[in-house]
């Protein structure tokens, strides 16, 4: 177990700048997510930590040890690959024992470690199967056991759930979290799925075009995005161009209230962002019980039913706003209904344009 410190890592592939000046701390025993769209450099970070890729400048420390000039096989970092990369010619047991065999750990000591690792992932009954006789979820369990059997300092996961269907993905997420807690290993996982990152991780780092744009507690990052990129990338946000004059914000002519105005913003043109799930929607003639600072009149132009939730697209003035609603009411607002959309001033996110 060890913490991982990346300092000012820069990496280019030819003319393409994959990472630029990325510094990140991964705390001991914590579950970290690196989130970003494809091509953002997130997998490159993982490959640099594992030692598969060189970097142009900067430094990496695992524990107190610099990783410079330490080859992959001497790093003792466990990695689970996107497609699991199980050795097809070996049984489950042989796959798991591989890391011990190449370290010349044999006999009873090795057998015991393999047994423990397979028990940890609930795969002890399948130890004689070949990888092609396993389901996707089982392969992932084996890949985890194989990565953990050598007691690595850090566990790296590269898009571990992307090959699984939705139900299995949820099950494996819960399993991964349990295993991570049980082992207590520093875990870094890379994903493009924001929900996955928010659910699993203690800390989250967001990359865009090779730059670390925000890092922190998942709730903080979600509720206080620092840029419109993050606001739209994480969750569903409505982002509008707005003007600001003497603290008064307007979208076109509609006044918008925001409680935490960022004092650093000095331009007249800004962006405001409101999460779709923070907006309430009512018919215009309905009585409203709560206190919402923001209120806009509009008209439903589209309503989408998705079982547990409803999505409304509402037009107000020249703009449209997306609203999520839990499917708790009887009626669904039909298209063309005049409505009011409401949200609190604390839910207005003010961003630089």
């Amino acid at each position: 177990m060890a913490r991982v410190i990346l300092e000012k890592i820069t990496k280019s592939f030819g003319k393409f700048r994959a990472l630029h000046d990325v510094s990140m701390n991964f705390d001991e025993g914590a579950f970290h997510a690196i989130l970003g769209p494809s091509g953002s450099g997130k997998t490159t970070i993982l490959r640099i930590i594992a030692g598969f890729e060189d970097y142009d400048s900067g430094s990496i420390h695992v524990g107190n040890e610099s990783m410079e000039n330490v080859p992959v096989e001497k790093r003792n970092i466990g990695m689970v690959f996107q497609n699991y990369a199980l050795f097809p010619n070996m049984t489950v047991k042989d796959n798991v024992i591989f890391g011990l065999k190449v370290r010349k750990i044999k006999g009873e000591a090795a057998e015991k470690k393999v047994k423990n690792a397979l028990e940890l992932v609930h795969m002890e009954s399948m130890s004689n199967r070949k990888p092609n006789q396993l389901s996707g979820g089982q392969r992932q369990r084996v890949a985890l056991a194989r990565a953990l059997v050598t007691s690595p300092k850090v566990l790296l996961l590269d898009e571990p759930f992307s090959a699984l269907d939705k139900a299995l993905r949820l099950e494996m997420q819960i399993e991964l979290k349990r295993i991570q807690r049980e082992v207590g290993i520093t875990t870094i996982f890379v994903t493009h799925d924001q929900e996955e990152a928010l659910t699993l991780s203690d800390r989250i780092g967001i990359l865009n075009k090779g730059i670390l744009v925000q890092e922190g507690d998942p709730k903080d990052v979600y509720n206080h995005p620092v840029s419109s990129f993050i606001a739209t990338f994480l969750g569903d946000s409505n982002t509008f161009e707005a003007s600001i004059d003497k603290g008064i914000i307007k979208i076109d002519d509609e006044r918008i209230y925001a409680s935490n105005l960022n004092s650093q913003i000095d331009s007249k043109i800004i962006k405001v962002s409101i999460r779709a799930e923070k907006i309430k929607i009512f018919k215009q003639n309905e009585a409203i019980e709560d206190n919402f600072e923001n209120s806009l009149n509009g008209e439903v132009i589209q309503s989408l039913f998705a079982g547990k939730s409803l999505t409304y697209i509402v037009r107000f003035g020249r703009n449209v706003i997306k609203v999520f609603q839990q499917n708790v009411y009887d009626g669904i607002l039909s298209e063309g209904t005049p409505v009011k959309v409401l949200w609190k001033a604390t839910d207005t996110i003010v961003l630089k344009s």
Partner: protein
Amino acid sequence: MKLHTLSKIYLALILTFLYVPIAVMILLSFNSSKFYRLPIDWTFKWYELLFENQQLIDASINSILIAFITTILATTIGTCAALAFFRHSFRGKNFLLLLLFPPIAIPWLIIGTSMLVFFFWIGIGRGLFALILGHVALAIPYVIIVVGARLKSFDKALEESARSLGATSFQTFWYVTFPFLFPGFLAASLFVFAISLDQFVISYFLATPDSRTLPVEIYTAIRKGFTPEINAISTIIILVSMSLLLIVSRYHKFEK
């Protein structure tokens, strides 16, 4: 349904034209008549004569020896080349890859002539060594293509995961890469063995009277007058090579 019948007939025709001549030859090797008179009068005479025919036996030994050495050299060199071609990038790689194909397309007659001229020019001349050199050179492109095809479907993450689990590059090759390549390696070996054993044109140019391979010897013998001993030795070769293939396919599935 109609198409099904048609394709069965098609298959039957192919098999007929492929195997009937071979079957005829095998049958005639047991016929005592030198002039293929029917009905067959069963005999082992030609086999007995064959074992007294030192020239044919020597040629067989030469052929098998050359095929073995060629197989070992060509598959080793070819596999290394395939690894270089399909795993690394270097300057001139595409040009070199392109150069692999002409030797397959150029008529053997021309390759044989040019090898003969070249080997004389650099002082190797003809003989066993020249034959092996020629066969190896001829076989390497096939090995690169066969092993390379297998290598193309190799998932590099397998090697990376072996490395991250603590394996050195040698351990990684031995435990992970080679087992994956093995079917391709085996197929290439059989292929090379067959190419070498079968090779006539180039061998004809490069063989000296005491380093004749079997095809060259058979050709020379036919020119002097056909004897059913040739049917007999051909039958033995067919049986040996077919059982070799059957053993391999029994113990190794070619599909993944």
